[in-house]
């Protein structure tokens, strides 16, 4: 089973109903897999802050939302994380492509990769870097459940290699 399929299985088993996304090369491949799910509706949004609000709206209305974006987009989200997600204590699971990490072959992503984990730590967000050597579906499910349990954001960083 591909990593993308495992991730979708994790989202499905965690009860995610709506996945809001701005794609990049990696997330785009994942989203195509999500579109095959009969349990999850993909909402294509124009900017990452919208994805956060859409996911939170789904959760407030009784479903479970997820945000699928690149780390550049995550860096856009500081305001809405503070002013909506944290302020109202809403669960919000993020699956974020970790561009610019040591495995990324594209040179121009490096600055984002350099600041991603430092930013997550500065924002005091719970997060993990996906481990392809373990069950990806379980890591996704645990992330969604952690967001729900703590009524807070949770970020799972993935590499393009994780999707293969």
């Amino acid at each position, binding site marked *: 089973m591909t990593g993308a399929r495992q991730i979708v299985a994790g989202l499905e088993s965690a009860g995610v109903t*709506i996945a809001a996304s701005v794609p990049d090369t990696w997330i785009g491949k994942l989203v195509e897999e999500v579109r095959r799910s009969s349990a999850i509706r993909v*909402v294509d949004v124009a900017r990452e802050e*919208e994805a956060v*609000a*859409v996911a939170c*709206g789904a959760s*407030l209305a009784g479903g479970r939302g997820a945000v699928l974006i690149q780390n550049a987009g995550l860096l856009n989200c500081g305001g809405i994380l*503070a002013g909506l997600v944290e302020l109202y204590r809403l669960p919000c699971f993020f699956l974020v492509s970790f561009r610019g990490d040591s495995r990324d072959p594209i040179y121009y992503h490096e600055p984002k990769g350099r600041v991603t984990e430092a930013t997550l730590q500065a924002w005091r967000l719970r997060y993990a870097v996906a481990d392809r050597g373990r069950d990806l579906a379980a890591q996704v499910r645990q992330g969604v459940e952690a967001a729900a349990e703590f009524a807070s954001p949770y970020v799972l960083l993935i590499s393009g290699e994780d999707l293969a």
Partner: protein
Amino acid sequence: MSARKPLLDALVSMLTPRDVLVSCLGANARYLPHMKVPSPVFALCDSMGAAIPLALGMALQRPDRHVIALEGDGSLLMSPNVLATVAAARPVNLSILLWVNGRYESSGGQALPPAPVDWAALARAAGIRHVESVRDVAGLRATFPNARSAGEPAVLVVDVAFDPAEAIPPYSERPGEIRARFRLD
């Protein structure tokens, strides 16, 4: 052009328990706790630009409820991209009331960048077909029922007078209270 409170009174008088109201930060969010609103209310006190996508997520999750988003022109100027997102998602149960006064009322009444934005044209250009302009309470009473029954996303562009002396009540509910009370049956 009408003052804000009579417009808000008229809107609330047309709501039912099956509606869901999402308010952006600012005057509307501050008035609503003092009003007898029959529908669930989720009011923001921060996060400009979040009201419409938040309402969109609710509308898609609960197609059996009609969701009404109250947004200000200052917030939408910051994130007009959401109009295209709404047009693409095509929820059948989302109405957007855009309150246009040309001011950042929540932060002291500073003027927006003085550009002659045609909000109705912008919404249509983004792909939203049901768009109407509202200039007064009678106009709101005439257009809101059509928006609610449109079966597609609707935008009402509501001209509202800016009054720097308006006695807007302060925020009277904490986010935790708003979150705890917000429940959809």
